[in-house]
């Protein structure tokens, strides 16, 4: 079946109808997923990192193995920093004077390095993952 729009307004109307149908169809599914995820319980252990004078504190953070944790990073500097780690597979901009959250794990035991992409010489740290007894 071939469509042959008779004039510009018909073509425009067809275009808008088709585009809106396609986008609304998927948007509804995405919205339902998002709402469900937003309502999911968040009971992960919380750890904190801060950035001051382009240095992460503490420089070594110990977290439990095989468990997902939440790390809240607060940037006290007046410029943004980017938390970057290939080991952890995370990349996140932390805006000046703001807090941001990254989720890490579950990970096996080991040492995972990270750095601040905008100040890589000073902003460096490690996350050490260890088995913790309950």
């Amino acid at each position: 079946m071939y469509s042959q729009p008779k004039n510009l307004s018909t073509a425009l109307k067809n275009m808008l109808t088709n585009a809106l149908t396609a986008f609304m169809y998927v948007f509804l599914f995405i919205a339902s997923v998002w709402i469900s995820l937003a309502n999911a319980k968040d009971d992960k252990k919380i750890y904190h990192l801060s950035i001051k004078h382009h240095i992460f504190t503490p420089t070594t953070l110990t977290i439990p193995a095989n468990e997902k944790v939440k790390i809240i990073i607060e940037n006290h500097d007046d410029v943004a920093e980017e938390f970057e780690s290939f080991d952890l597979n995370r990349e996140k901009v932390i805006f000046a004077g703001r807090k941001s959250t990254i989720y890490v794990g579950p990970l096996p035991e080991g040492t995972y390095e990270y750095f601040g992409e905008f100040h890589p010489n000073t902003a460096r740290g490690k996350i050490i993952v260890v088995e913790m007894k309950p």
Partner: protein
Amino acid sequence: MNNPMITIKHVLTVFLLLSSINVFADGMVVDKVYHPYVIANEQEFEWRFMSSQTPDSNVLAQRLGYGQSILENFAIELYVIGERDETGDFKLQATEVEARWMLTEQGQYWADWGAVFEFEKRRNTSQYEASAGLIVEKEFNKNSLTVNLFVIKEWGNNIENEWEAEFRLQYRYRYLPSLQPSIEIYTGEDFIGIGPGFMGVKRFNGQKQLKWEAGFITEVAHSGKNHTLRFSIEYEF
């Protein structure tokens, strides 16, 4: 509705049903496997190359794009697309606008979710394509499994007015930043392809980084030669 796993199963079921729609082949299925992440304050230039060879044709498509994140979780990218036409000339054939939306924080849930929306207009003719895709990525230690499910609508003059569905999958081992081998699967438009690929990244100062991706996909659903080489380079800053 409060159980995310049930909702995710419903979404995947619907998209898998859509993926089984059998449609006429009129485009290249092998393209990029999208990841569900957006980095704030990021701009990029992108070059994509795709060459597909069959006994009857040698299709070549390239695209140049510029994109930037306009929110912490939302990015826009504009492309110009060049393709080899029926006379063998390589010409600008289409323009496209793309929006990527990071739906969940990386690592927060069982899997990471994103969405991509594309709108393409063919040059000098009233042919259009709108697509919406769901992106899911799951990490297993140093491995990442990424799935893209697209619903596509094509319409306009001299083109079949049709719905299509495409499925893309990439299983990647994050061996080194510069070398992350993968296996990729593409289905859609009466096409099932599989093949090896790799991606890598080289970081420079600040947010500057160069990313590369390549894949060699072989069509396996039909007899006869049908290979597609794809690669892309992105400069992010």
